[in-house]
């Protein structure tokens, strides 16, 4: 058997022993899809055991490792790295190895609950659905949906259609606003279309890997070890760690460059300066494939210049980066001039393949769009683009920030497939796909995350026009910056209504008015899309506990309740927007939980959604192809022989089928509509809040290996919790000595917005620079987001969790 998967035909020819074993497997997958269509449900290799193994992407980070989930008697009992997966080749990280435990914390939410007279009382699902429908119907313009990069693709698509087609507003946004939006605006500004042109294969091929302010060893460990394990094979790969503090990544780097906040802007410009000075410009590439841009003048002090900018010539660009000499960059960033020269020399060399990598350091940045643009720019300028190993790669933190929020467009200004609300042609496409009357989709952009929660936390009679929020699969009560202003004020606003679909009690459910218990990961069918454009699929393997139900079902059920009330949710023919029928053209009552798994709703939603993906050449294959594979990277294009071929390097003629024949590169969504990418000039600017006499330290926040985001899953996994039981504050030794603090002492970290008490950890896992402190944000008993600043990038609206001014005092 050469294929890893057995078709029904092959099943019938194997010997009896194997058949008996695989029959158990068939029963498990049959549960996930009882569709009578009968296409071959692929069954995966059976190890000799009573365990049933099935594939799924990991629940945690944006790497998108594939795991094998071992289930027995309706429970997950083991996890293995999937050796057949290209992403991780059988390896996982400590979180992935323990992902099977994430569902079994003792306090799983198992029944819907409504707040009555201050207490949460259990209610039925019918009452819950009716309550939500009544609330929305009473004021649809006051309703906002807040979703997540952990939404599966079908979940996000259902919510997006619910709001944009069903209610005719754009009042939906998602937590990638807090995590990736600057990467999006960076890609859009440069290439005219979102998401990386490169793939993880670039890690295997590069000569130099540059970490631009990301702690890859802890945050994308499987990708990091993919890089460093090349050394065990005798390959030479130079790792440069650009960082504000020493981390585990620094330990395995060849060069560590410590920089000051916003120094990245100066460094990138310094590299551009040197590329030009050292004759490292790939003139041919630039002439044929690049235009130059800069921002125009601001309209007024409160409005940023238009994101499209104004043209500039190469000469003007060279003049603009002229001041960024190595010495000037050292002054602005703190990185020694000789190291800047090293970087410039590396980029000027054409024989080296350079892979730049970044994550939150670039995106949670008040100039996030700018820094993303500049680093794309230096790769384009020097020709380090579009060949295996030459790439500027944005890594994502969530398992489906790409697959769901970005690609499905679950943001207040987007439509599925990378289409934009602001574009009348795009709205027309969506109306066409959704069978809506012309003009049904609102042209008015909705509220981005911070704006949504700000209005929710403002009295209704003072402009707080967001009165109901439905949160699914995320924890804004923990992860929004400046929590007092953006979340906690809701407590005193009696007319606001917060609905939360989640799996465990969280900081968000603590202020919820209605809690809906949800199915998690392999308790439902799902699909995710990772950082390298790989869409991955899984089947339901175990039942959710108690009355927990799929998030997509919840959305669909409320949609039906609203439709029945005559409150929208219909297309131009008056048909319910989630109407689903079998081959006999009879409607299938998917709003009724008892029938939700009569068919594979995921497949129906996905195959409807994928029509959108053609417009911007983000082609998705049919659902069945993802079932058979360990994910496929879009654009996935069908070949003459019927096979579906994924694309690795976009815009490169040798691999991207949408590049015209004969061209080496083609940026076919070019902003300037001439197949060229944009190289941007953006100046260095200082952060909005800098240390001063009262608040003399820089605060940076971030993550640790063991915990994923707000820790609602990982802190319920004993091995992970015990390895990292609580948050702390990292201090430089000299700073600690100056304030009389030893490792283990309690200190108070305070900003203009709030304060948190934390144990000091000196000489631990990270070593900040003098004048800097670092606090991980996973601990819900110590909310560092009470302290953080909610200033955001003017284009992406993404807040900056990486730098604000704090005081640090020993707690007496």
């Amino acid at each position: 058997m050469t294929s890893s998967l057995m078709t029904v035909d092959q099943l019938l020819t194997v010997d009896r022993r194997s058949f008996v074993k695989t029959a158990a497997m068939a029963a498990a997958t049959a549960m996930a899809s009882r569709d009578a269509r009968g296409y071959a449900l692929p069954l995966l290799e059976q190890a000799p055991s009573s365990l049933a193994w099935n594939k799924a992407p990991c629940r945690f980070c944006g790497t998108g490792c594939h795991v094998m989930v071992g289930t027995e008697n309706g429970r997950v009992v083991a996890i293995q790295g999937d050796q057949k997966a290209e992403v991780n080749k059988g390896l996982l990280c400590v979180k992935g190895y323990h992902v099977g435990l994430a569902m079994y914390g003792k306090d799983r939410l198992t029944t819907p609950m409504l707040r009555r007279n201050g207490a949460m009382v259990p209610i039925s699902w019918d009452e819950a659905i009716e309550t939500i429908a009544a609330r929305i119907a009473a004021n649809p313009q006051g309703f906002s949906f807040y979703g997540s990069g952990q939404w599966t693709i079908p979940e996000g698509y259902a919510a997006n259609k619910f709001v944009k087609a069903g209610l005719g507003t754009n009042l939906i946004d998602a937590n990638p606003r807090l995590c990736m939006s600057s990467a999006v605006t960076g890609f859009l500004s440069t290439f005219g279309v979102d998401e990386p042109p490169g793939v993880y294969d670039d890690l295997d091929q590069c000569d130099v890997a540059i970490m631009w302010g990301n702690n890859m060893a802890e945050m994308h460990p499987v990708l990091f070890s993919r890089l460093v394990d090349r050394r065990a094979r005798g390959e030479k790969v130079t790792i440069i760690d650009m960082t504000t503090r020493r981390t585990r990544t620094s330990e395995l780097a060849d060069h560590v460059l410590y920089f000051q906040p916003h120094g990245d802007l100066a460094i990138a410009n310094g590299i551009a300066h040197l590329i030009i000075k050292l004759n490292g410009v790939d003139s041919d590439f630039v002439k044929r494939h690049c235009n130059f841009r800069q921002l125009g003048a601001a309209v007024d002090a409160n409005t940023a210049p238009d994101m499209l900018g104004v043209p500039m010539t190469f000469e003007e660009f060279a003049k603009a980066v002229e001041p960024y000499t190595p010495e000037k960059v050292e002054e602005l960033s703190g990185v020694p001039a000789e190291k800047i020269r090293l970087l410039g020399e590396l980029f000027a060399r054409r024989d080296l393949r350079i892979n730049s990598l970044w994550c939150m350091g670039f995106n949670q940045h008040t100039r996030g769009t700018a820094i993303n643009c500049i680093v794309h720019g230096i790769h384009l300028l020097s020709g380090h683009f579009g060949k295996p190993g030459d790439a500027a790669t944005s890594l994502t933190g969530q398992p489906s920030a790409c697959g769901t929020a970005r690609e499905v467009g679950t943001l207040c200004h987007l439509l599925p497939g990378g289409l934009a609300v602001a574009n009348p042609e795009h709205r027309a496409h969506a109306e066409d796909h959704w069978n809506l009357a012309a003009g049904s989709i609102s042209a008015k952009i909705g509220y981005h995350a911070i704006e949504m929660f700000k209005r929710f936390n403002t009295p209704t009679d003072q402009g707080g026009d967001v009165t109901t929020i439905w949160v699914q699969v995320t924890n804004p009560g923990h992860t929004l910056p400046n929590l007092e202003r953006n979340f906690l004020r809701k407590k005193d606003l009696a007319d606001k209504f917060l609905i939360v679909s989640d799996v465990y009690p969280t900081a968000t459910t603590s202020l919820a008015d209605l809690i809906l218990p949800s199915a998690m990961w392999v308790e439902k069918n799902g699909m995710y899309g990772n950082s390298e454009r790989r869409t991955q699929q899984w089947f339901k393997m175990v039942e959710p506990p108690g009355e927990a139900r799929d998030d997509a079902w919840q959305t669909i059920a409320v949609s039906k309740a609203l439709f029945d009330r005559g409150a929208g949710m219909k297309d131009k023919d008056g048909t319910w927007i989630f109407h689903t029928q079998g081959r006999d053209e009879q409607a299938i009552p998917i709003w009724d939980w008892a029938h939700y798994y009569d068919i594979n709703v995921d497949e129906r939603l996905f195959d409807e959604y994928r029509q959108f993906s053609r417009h911007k050449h983000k082609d998705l294959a049919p659902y069945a192809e993802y079932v058979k594979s360990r994910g496929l990277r879009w654009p996935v294009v069908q070949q003459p022989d019927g096979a579906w071929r994924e694309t690795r390097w976009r815009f490169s003629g040798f691999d991207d089928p949408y590049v015209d024949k004969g061209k080496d590169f083609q940026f076919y969504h070019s902003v300037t509509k001439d197949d060229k990418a944009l190289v941007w000039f953006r100046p260095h600017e200082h952060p909005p809040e800098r240390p001063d006499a009262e608040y003399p330290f820089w605060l940076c926040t971030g993550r640790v290996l063991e915990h994923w985001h707000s820790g609602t899953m990982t802190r319920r996994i004993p091995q992970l919790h015990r390895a990292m039981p609580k948050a702390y504050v990292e201090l430089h030794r000299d700073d600690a000595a100056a304030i009389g603090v030893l490792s283990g002492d309690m200190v108070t970290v305070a900003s203009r917005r709030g304060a948190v008490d934390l144990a000091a950890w000196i000489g631990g896992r990270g070593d900040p620079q003098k004048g800097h402190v670092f606090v991980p944000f996973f601990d819900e008993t110590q909310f560092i987001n009470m302290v953080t600043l909610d200033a955001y990038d003017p284009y992406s609206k993404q807040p900056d969790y990486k730098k604000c001014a704090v005081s640090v005092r020993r707690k007496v």
Partner: protein
Amino acid sequence: MAMHRWNRAARPALWITLMGAGAAAAFASVDRAAPQAPAVSTPLRWRLNTPAALIVPESKALPAAVADKFGARARSVEARAQLRAYEGAPPVIPHATVDMNVQTCRACHAQGLTAGDKVARMASHTYLQNCTQCHVEADGLASLAAPGDPPKPINTFVGFRAGGHGGTRAWTGAPPVMPHTTFMRTNCISCHGEFGYDGWRPDHLSRSNCVQCHAPAAEFDQLAPTFGKADLPDGLSVPLP
């Protein structure tokens, strides 16, 4: 998949490395939970786990024939399972570590060593560089522990446990098959060698080319999950008369 052959001449260098601070710190912390050291300072007996130790004459081979062989095997399975959430999970680290430097892991686990009654097994997959990606401390942040700390979570997950034996042998007396694949288990002596688990130690340690005779069970696909319920049809897992 032959075992590594170490250059005998390299041994002195390794001894010197281990004498360094890394090893001293590491084995001091290994014994964190041990009873009080005796008042008189006696040097801890410790030695490096080298394959040279395996090359012993038959007459002096370690008595691996433990009286209750199958009981010992079961106890080894249990001992091994203590540090793992389920069979196949990476073991947690039962001692404090130097958080940022994977080279300190290698000081003891690159080849393995014993210190007093503690054993640092040779890593079964030394080709992977980023140890702390998968292995985390059993009790982390111990130096910051304080009375008000968050409580440990209650989790009802029950992990799969291997039986520790199984797989179909070709015929009575054929070499037993591995009830596991070799993915991430390419160093046999890690678990089966002199400083491996008691119940799994073969009676022929003088033979150092394990995979010459032993292969993973035929029921396995080397690319699929590495184990199953280990009590497979194997009429030979009962003691021979």
